[in-house]
């Protein structure tokens, strides 16, 4: 039962479970991701996203990196994820087949700020999301690109949901549902690489993954066997 095992891993992992090497790597990648988001904040794409989210007028809760204002967690995740990938200067994982930190840092910062979590919890959510993304990437490999989808965001939506479920302390059952909801929210066409839309994939994945965890927390239902049921992910 893949979904059950993943959900249990996500729900039970705590800071004390993280190997030191993971914590060290996580902190390096956070700094890198924040830096590339700052650099990306000046891109025309970022001006467009910023203008869009200002129009949505979210409550000033979560910082938009390098833009001098705050907005709602969902809109901040959309903007921060997009900006961190805007220059394609962010980290990449060959196992994940994508760009993990743009998505995960954006999702963890937004959810983490809303829930007022500690640095240890934030790092734990990030590492859990990374592990889940890498597990999925390792099992789907490049079949996903041959099918026309972009793995950064398809895998990333589920990884972001895992990170946020861990941060929010969802139990294994609700986490399993969060995975089911997230799988239905995956998107991103590989054909859009090289265009502005590719970085937007990272923002969408961060926002959707967060939303999947938030809906699961409120009892929204989804398939409990999204990775092994008939017609599964």
């Amino acid at each position, binding site marked *: 039962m893949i979904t059950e095992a993943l959900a249990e891993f996500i729900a039970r992992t705590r800071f004390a479970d993280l190997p030191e090497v993971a914590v060290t790597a996580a902190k390096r990648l956070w*700094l890198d991701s924040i830096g590339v988001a700052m650099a990306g904040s000046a891109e025309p794409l970022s001006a467009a996203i910023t203008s869009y989210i200002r129009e949505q007028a979210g409550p000033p809760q*979560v910082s938009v*990196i*390098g833009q*001098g204002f705050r907005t709602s967690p969902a809109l901040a995740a959309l903007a921060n994820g997009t900006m961190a990938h805007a220059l394609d200067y962010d980290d990449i994982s060959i196992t994940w087949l994508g760009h993990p930190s743009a998505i995960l840092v954006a999702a963890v*910062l937004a959810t*983490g700020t809303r829930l*007022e*979590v500690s640095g240890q919890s*934030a790092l734990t959510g990030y590492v859990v999301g990374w592990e889940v993304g890498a597990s999925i990437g390792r099992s789907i490999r490049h079949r996903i690109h041959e099918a026309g989808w972009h793995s950064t965001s398809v895998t990333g939506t589920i990884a972001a949901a895992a990170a946020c479920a861990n941060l929010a302390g969802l139990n294994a059952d609700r986490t399993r549902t969060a995975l089911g909801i997230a799988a239905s929210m995956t998107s991103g066409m590989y054909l859009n690489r090289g265009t502005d839309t590719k970085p937007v994939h990272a923002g969408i994945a961060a926002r959707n993954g967060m939303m999947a965890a938030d809906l699961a927390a409120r009892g929204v239902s989804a398939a409990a066997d999204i990775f092994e049921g008939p017609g599964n992910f």
Partner: protein
Amino acid sequence: MRSDDVEEITIHCGGLALLASEPLPLRRRPLTSIDAKFSIPFIVSVALAHHKVLLGDFLPKNLGDPAVLSLADRVRVRHDPRLDDGAGFRGAGMVKAVLEVKTRDGNTRTARVEYAHGGPDDPMSVDERRAKFEDCAAYSAVPIPAADIRRIIELVSTLEQQEDLRELFQLLNGRR
């Protein structure tokens, strides 16, 4: 090595790396920042011309740097299946490469890369990571003061000791 001494540069690489070298005329003269980042001829020429590669080298205004472009015209890229590492698309390689530089005096110098710099097998140093961060932060839409940049580095480096993310998040915003 000086650019003027270079006769020809040949990059031997895995199959996936060909995506960043074909079509050759476009890769030698990238028209956009993203094309330049996905161009082996352009990046190798930046490294040879400037001895380092920075974000600014990919700004639209720097894509026409004559010192870089004259070298890019001397770059050739060859697929060597022995460099396919099984990691990339359909097993084609994207990291391993051999760089061969023929100089005008008739000598050839080669260098082999096994791992991408910055990856787990060849990590960036503390100073390199800090330099990349500071270089990036300088482009922020809302300027981030130098003291805030130092504080952000400190906060992230000690993240597991932070009670909450409040101060970090305040600083990331940039100040108006």
